[in-house]
């Protein structure tokens, strides 16, 4: 499980995906504003990280529905729980590492246990705040949140999917952990996007193997799939935007219809997407080879977001290179 040397892609490069013209956290904040226009029960709370979470437009549009609780994440989760008991839909916004670890017990006991209608808006997922270092990385949050009964976990792959996720999260009755990023990300979807909690999106057809990503790594999987065509490999790509409840059927189909399943996540490989997929495959008795790509039981170190994705083997070229290694 320990970190091995990540192989590099030796073939030709491919055209990168177009990048969104807006930072993902800003896009998320604007999506929340749109939801709040038609739903007067939506409230936003922050532990003083208004700019960082992209909620300035919300605070300006709805000052009477916005609350800064101060630098106090634990209390914020309890306050959100109390508001939810009064019929509000509180959206508690902070960095992913704080939402999942500083306020871990409050999320479990105050929100998940009583099944209260609180949305946790967790930004800077994975190594999105790469240069902030390990204190500011959120590489454990999915594993932690996945163990809480009643919790739903959603992670959008791009701006259009963020709109869908925000609408679905608000419409869902019960706690939701929304895993968001920081800067601009690649554009995956255009035009119409059918979205349903718990139903993975097939973003590329393929017959040889399946790449499963979530959030930022969906774009990286698409890049890897494009690179793999140079070697005559047809890779299916799934966007596992719902990490809980996970789409067992899409995983089973991938394991039955293709010869290998590879997960790629900006998260520790323990307990996140890869762990969830492994659990499903093992319990269904599907012996298709599985490889989990992600941060391999180490702290990610400091660096730019893209540099860290490459370093940990979850950028497109590194995913493709590792797939070739697995196939040898």
């Amino acid at each position: 499980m320990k970190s091995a040397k990540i192989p590099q892609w030796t073939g030709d490069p491919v055209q990168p995906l177009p990048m969104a013209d807006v930072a993902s956290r800003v896009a998320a904040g604007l999506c929340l504003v749109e939801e709040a226009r038609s739903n007067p029960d939506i409230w936003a709370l922050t532990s003083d990280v208004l700019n960082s979470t992209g909620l300035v437009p919300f605070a300006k549009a709805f000052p009477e529905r916005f609350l800064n609780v101060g630098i106090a994440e634990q209390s914020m989760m309890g306050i959100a729980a109390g508001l939810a008991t009064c019929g509000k839909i509180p959206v508690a916004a902070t960095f992913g590492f704080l939402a999942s670890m500083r306020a871990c017990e409050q999320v479990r006991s105050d929100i998940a246990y009583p099944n209260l209608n609180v949305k946790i808006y967790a930004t800077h997922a994975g190594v999105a705040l790469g240069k902030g270092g390990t204190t500011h990385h959120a590489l454990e949050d999915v594993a932690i949140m996945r163990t809480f009964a009643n919790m739903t976990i959603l992670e959008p792959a791009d701006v259009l999917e963020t709109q869908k996720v925000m609408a679905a999260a608000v419409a869902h009755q019960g706690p939701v952990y929304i895993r968001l990023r920081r800067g601009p990300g690649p554009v995956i979807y255009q035009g119409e996007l059918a979205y349903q909690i718990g139903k993975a999106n097939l973003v590329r057809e393929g017959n040889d193997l399946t790449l499963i990503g979530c959030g930022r790594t969906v774009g990286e999987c698409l890049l890897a799939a494009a690179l793999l065509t140079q070697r005559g490999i047809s890779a299916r790509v799934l966007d596992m935007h719902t990490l809980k409840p996970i789409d067992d059927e899409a995983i089973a189909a991938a394991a039955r219809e293709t010869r290998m399943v590879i997960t790629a996540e900006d998260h520790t490989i323990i307990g996140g997407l890869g762990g969830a997929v492994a659990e499903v495959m093992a319990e269904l008795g599907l012996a298709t080879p599985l490889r989990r790509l992600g941060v391999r039981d180490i702290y990610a170190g400091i660096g730019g977001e893209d540099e860290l994705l490459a370093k940990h083997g979850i950028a497109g070229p590194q995913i493709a290179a590792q797939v070739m290694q697995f196939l040898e």
Partner: protein
Amino acid sequence: MTINPTRLHELEDMARRVRRHILTTVHAAGGGHVGGPLSATDMLVALYFHILNIDPTNPQWEDRDRFILSKGHSCIALYAVMAERGYFPVSELITFDGIDSRLQGHPDMARLPGLDMSTGSLGQGLSPGVGMALGARLRNKPFTTYVMLGDGECQEGQVWEAAFVAARYRLGNLVAILDLNRLQQYGWQEPGGMRPPLDDPRRQWEAFGWQVSVVDGHDITSFVEALSTARQESDRPAIVIAHTVKGKGISFMEGDYSWHARVPTDVELARALAELELREVQP
């Protein structure tokens, strides 16, 4: 909100009934807390039978006053009071701590209608109280949110996160009650005796911008008056610091921290119940 002598006698009688339930239930369950519930009993009776604007037949009524027992381990006292108030049959108390009981060792709002918050992890109850007080203000609801804290749990940092922001948002509709029984499970033994969990709670809460009053938590009349005063100020949260005795009402339990969570033997139970009977016939 004053209390006439007849009413006071009824409430004191109810407090004795509740103490009996606490002792017999914990004895029957073979587990549970005793000292903390007994220190909170008189205040819980005053709240549920005289102060809270509630309707046990409609526990989800939107305008009801809210009550959070942040010191959730004392829930057997709350369950006994709720049963006597009509939220569920008194006969259900015997299920306390049993498998699938609605009366869990720490309160579960998803199971038991009438509980306004699930609690049990110390230091967490005041934050949801802040959320409820904000919810009331935002919806123009007239209700008051009450949160009972233990003095020991004020050693948790989250209490002060909530205390800070409650004052900052001028939550005059939030009232905390500090059950100051001056004992925690272990504490600090010093040459002069046991050091209490908090050295100077009045100064601490005043420093956080709260309106503070201090009463005897076993004197129902004073307690009711203090709560009435606490609600009058509209732009500051209030705390009623209630001096109490852990194990109150049973001579051999009073002030003895070993009764924090000890199950009485058959003989101890009989002695304790006899003491409660004896007090009932005193003038």
